[in-house]
């Protein structure tokens, strides 16, 4: 479904080239859940933004269902079937939860449908459907709405950047069944950035990113034992230990 061919991304910092992503090669098949993990600043979120088209590649190519989408706009990638839940959801003064979900679905969603998506993320629909997406919502509420919006797109590839962040224990069961449902119902794929063991456990494959590169990539059973090693855990949390 998705293929990244030698994708690189670098920025110019004080006249020096700084590599954010180096030679990323990755393939995600239909019906797969792939979880990306790795320490802060390793390039995980940048990779998702590059797939969505929010950040342009410096070199390399991206294919979606065999189509070269490297130079395609965000809008066209979305229309092709890529959906993306931001790490930090965006607030909108005046727009309601229903407005956003309806736009996401590109159809006149019935109230019942909106409720259905909201209940998937553990929100009581009646309380939220007409709420404005402004400062009156907490970070956790907004995060759940972001996930519901992403699900409402019925896209082939769903990307979630740390979906568990700010979400209480509703929760994990609901979240995980939503990911699995997408895979089963649409034959779609999930690409998830997470450090959560429960989410790593539903992965078919795990990508470990380290220092702008993919350091490990393989089936969950092959990667998880390495992740559980003390050495890697301390590296994951290096920010705290160093």
């Amino acid at each position, binding site marked *: 479904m998705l293929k990244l061919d030698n994708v690189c991304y670098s920025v110019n910092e004080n006249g020096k080239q700084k590599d954010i992503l180096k030679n990323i090669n990755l393939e995600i098949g239909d019906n797969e859940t792939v979880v990306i993990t790795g320490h802060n600043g390793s390039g995980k979120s940048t990779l998702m933004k590059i797939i*969505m088209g929010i950040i342009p590649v410096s070199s390399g190519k991206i294919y979606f269902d065999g189509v070269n989408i490297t130079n395609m706009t965000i809008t066209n990638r979305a229309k092709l079937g890529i*959906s993306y839940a931001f790490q930090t959801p965006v607030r909108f*003064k*005046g*727009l309601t939860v229903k*407005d956003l979900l309806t736009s996401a679905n590109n159809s006149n969603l019935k109230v019942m449908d909106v409720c259905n998506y909201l209940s998937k993320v553990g929100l009581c629909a009646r309380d939220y459907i007409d709420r404005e997406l402004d400062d009156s919502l907490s970070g956790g509420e907004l995060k759940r709405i972001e996930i519901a919006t992403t699900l409402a*797109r019925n896209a082939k590839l769903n990307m979630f950047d740390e979906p568990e962040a700010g979400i209480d224990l509703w929760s994990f069961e609901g979240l995980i069944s939503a990911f699995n449902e997408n895979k089963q119902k649409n034959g779609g794929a999930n690409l998830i950035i997470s450090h959560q063991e429960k989410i790593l456990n539903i992965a078919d494959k795990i990508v470990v990113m380290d220092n702008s590169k993919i350091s490990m990539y393989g089936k969950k059973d092959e990667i998880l034992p390495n992740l559980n090693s003390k050495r890697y855990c301390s590296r994951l949390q290096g920010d705290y230990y160093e």
Partner: protein
Amino acid sequence: MNKIEKDLLLAVSDLHQIPAGAYNIRQNGKGIDKKNTANIEIVSKKDKSGIDIIIKPNTINESVHIPVIITESGIKDVVYNDFYIGDNSDILIVAGCGIHNPDKNSSEHNGIHTFHIGKNAKVKYVEKHLGVGQSGEKILNPITEVYLDNGSYMLMETTQLGGVSYSQRKTIAEVSDNAKLVIKEKILTSENQQANTNFDVLLTGQNSSCEVTSRSVAKGQSIQEFISKVTGNNLCFGHVECDAIIMDNSKIISTPEIVANCVDANLVHEAAIGKIAGEQIIKLMSLGLTEKEAEDMIIQGFLK
């Protein structure tokens, strides 16, 4: 009425047909239709252009529509409308002016409205302004004076969503004991339009309060100026919030002024001007909207 006139009437007063309650319809500087009810009397002024709207005490759940439409070029209309709202009433008043300027001369409407709101009365006042048609300027200068007696309440919703070349809005209010004034303003300007708003609210009564919320979007080369002054002379609460989206080469000036003449006056002013956040556009594009569609949706929501 022809289609243009009907459309204007619908746009400024949501009227699909003759309204159920009292009404006065004014076109091109003259009253063309009028209806009283048992509790609401509309009387034409003798000394100048305009009407007195007299609402008996205890009139509940009734409405008054007083739309103005201008469909000729080169008209300058000035009208004085005085509302006397009896104690304990609960009333909806819908005003507003639509100008369809068919030529290049400017057409102008200046509506001077005064509200005397009786004790414990409730008023919802809705005012919409719209300009359409040819190159001639569409000018609207509403002046609103509000006197809220003890325990009364007024919600004033004013909307100017496009086509008005120039507007100078002035609202003066005096709020007595336990009375409350809520003002919600929405403005959209584009091209070379200019919209000036000036609120001056005096909180004289004990436990008096006011909330002023202004949301505006300025596009093109348009200019908006928002001046608000709230004076607290007693134990009172005043809150002014001005929130604006600036686009293209437009200009927005927001001038807050809060004056406390009493130690128990609690007054707050919040003002923000900014362009549409890039991440908002990106979020909506990632749902499949184009950049233009995303921008329109954000503005529409903001001014909803």
